């Protein structure tokens, strides 16, 4: 639907360098990356608020690089809501319709249904200053949806909300995506939001797009070590391929060998990524990588617990708290750890 073709752009201290990406119709596209990576600038470039110095932006195959924002069919929601304090909720929400030439009363009628849907009906005549943060953010979202955008752009919409409001908001967003079929682009630095909502994602580090693709692929099989670190893969091991037979490679990762599925040839330096939920403690059921080890730490986090096991290299597994109790895991416990060869993602340093 919208595509960036080698876009470069400088804005103050932020730079986008040679960014190429494609956002498809109906995608819930996440742009993630560390602070200062240029995520917001990228979002604003989609909206047409910044003119690229190099490269092209295409909408449904047509070049729109210099098309002004009001003709792009987008709507933007910032983290700080950016509501108009001197307008009522209803006037805020109908603003986008009024700048398109609709009469004030007609616009208010038009958005009445939307206000109800987002639970704002009873707040229509209130001013934003009298609303809670969650209500204000909902007004901002409704205002954006009211203009029926082709693409909804969200800049960290959840980061200023409390956890309970966040959950409700995530449900709202999911419905907008699934039921209304809206294409949504969201800037975020929350792994949880990404896992819950994203269908596709891009990782932006220092102005460069270092990974892009289906969200589950980027999250579990990243292209580079820095992406793996950023998306929070728990076990990242550097090693060298010692043998490769029909795509099954043996990798020496400093004291422990792993079998993995890769084309990397013997002698090649690689990085292994293993999600903690792919590390099985107990009976591995014939997994290729089965090793003995000693539990060094158990870190509880709500209903789950991270278990660190020293088996020549340190591996982190994630288990339910209940399983930890059933297996009586504690520092010093001797365990067997199993990882399927297919669960080991190999990053080739040449690629």
């Amino acid at each position, binding site marked *: 639907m919208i595509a960036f073709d080698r876009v470069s752009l400088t804005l103050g201290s932020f730079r986008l360098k040679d960014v190429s990406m494609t956002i498809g119709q109906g995608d819930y596209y996440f742009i993630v990356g560390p602070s200062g990576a240029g995520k917001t600038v990228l979002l604003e470039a989609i909206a047409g608020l910044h003119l690229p110095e190099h490269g092209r932006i295409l909408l449904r195959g047509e070049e729109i690089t210099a098309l002004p924002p009001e003709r792009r069919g987008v709507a*933007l929601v910032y983290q700080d809501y950016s509501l108009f304090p*001197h307008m009522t909720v209803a006037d805020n929400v109908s603003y986008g319709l009024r700048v398109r030439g609709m009469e004030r009363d007609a616009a208010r009628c038009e958005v009445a249904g939307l206000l109800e849907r987002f639970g704002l009906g009873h707040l229509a005549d209130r001013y934003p200053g009298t609303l809670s943060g969650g209500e204000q953010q909902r007004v901002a979202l409704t205002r954006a949806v009211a203009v029926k955008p082709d693409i909804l752009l969200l800049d960290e919409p959840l980061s200023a909300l409390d956890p309970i409001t966040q959950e409700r908001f995530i449900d709202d967003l999911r419905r907008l995506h699934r039921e209304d079929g809206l294409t949504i682009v969201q800037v975020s630095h929350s792994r949880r939001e990404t896992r819950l909502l994203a269908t596709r994602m891009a990782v932006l580090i220092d102005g460069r797009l270092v990974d892009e693709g289906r969200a589950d692929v980027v999250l579990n099989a990243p292209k580079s070590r820095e992406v793996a670190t950023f998306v929070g893969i728990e076990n990242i091991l550097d090693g060298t391929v010692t043998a490769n037979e029909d795509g099954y490679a043996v990798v020496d990762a400093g004291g422990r060998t792993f079998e993995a599925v890769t084309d990397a040839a013997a002698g090649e330096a690689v990085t292994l990524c293993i999600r903690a939920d792919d590390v099985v403690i107990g009976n591995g059921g014939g997994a290729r990588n089965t090793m003995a080890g000693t539990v060094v730490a158990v870190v509880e986090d709500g209903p789950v617990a991270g278990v660190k096991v020293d088996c020549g290299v340190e591996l982190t597994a994630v288990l339910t708290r209940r399983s930890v109790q059933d297996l009586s895991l504690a520092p010093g416990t001797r365990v067997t750890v199993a990882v399927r060869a297919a669960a080991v993602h190999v990053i080739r340093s040449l690629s």
Partner: protein
Amino acid sequence: MVNGSPVVEGFIEAINLIVTLNPQVVEITIRSLYVSLTATFFASLVALPLGALIYFYEFRGKHALVSTLQTLYALPTVIVGLIMFLLLSNIGPFGFLRLLYTPGGMIAAQTVLIIPLLMGLTVSALSGIDRDKRYTITALGASRLQTVTTVIAEARFAVMSGVLLGFGRAISEVGAVMIVGGNIRGATRVLTTAIALNTSMANYSMSIALGIILLSVALGVNVVLSLVQRR
């Protein structure tokens, strides 16, 4: 004035002058308000659009221009008076307008005096609307002109505060109206110049009466200002 307390006596007489609506007091007050309100109106007409232009357009030297405007907030009124006198006098380029020693000339002088203040305060008022909000407005489909008008509407109370401050500076200044207006009785005498003259003539009761009125105007402006800023 010799026996005891001329101030108290003057004060009592001043109240009397105000309560009985002394014709001279009324006339001077009305002229003062007329001159300064008209000057504020014309200055707003020029300064608000120019201020908006400075805020919305990026150009080289923008920062220096805003700094210069802020420096001109403290422009000495006698300097404005002197420059306007030279411009409006018979030998000056605008002598043909015959505005020297007329209320029109005083309006022109006060307009020039407060334009930098109004421009600078307009820029500040608009800068109070953050970047994200500007972008949100644009991304919601507002054209450039609609973005500008929405930002100005959002900043209207801050802009209004600036206008009130400009009026306050105009009505309380004495240097420019004294030089350009000449303080002619019944023609160009306003509150500030009348106070200066009456005080030097030891006519304290008149000075105090006019002073009370001037202070009331300033107080009124402040009350309106705080009401506006509470919004």
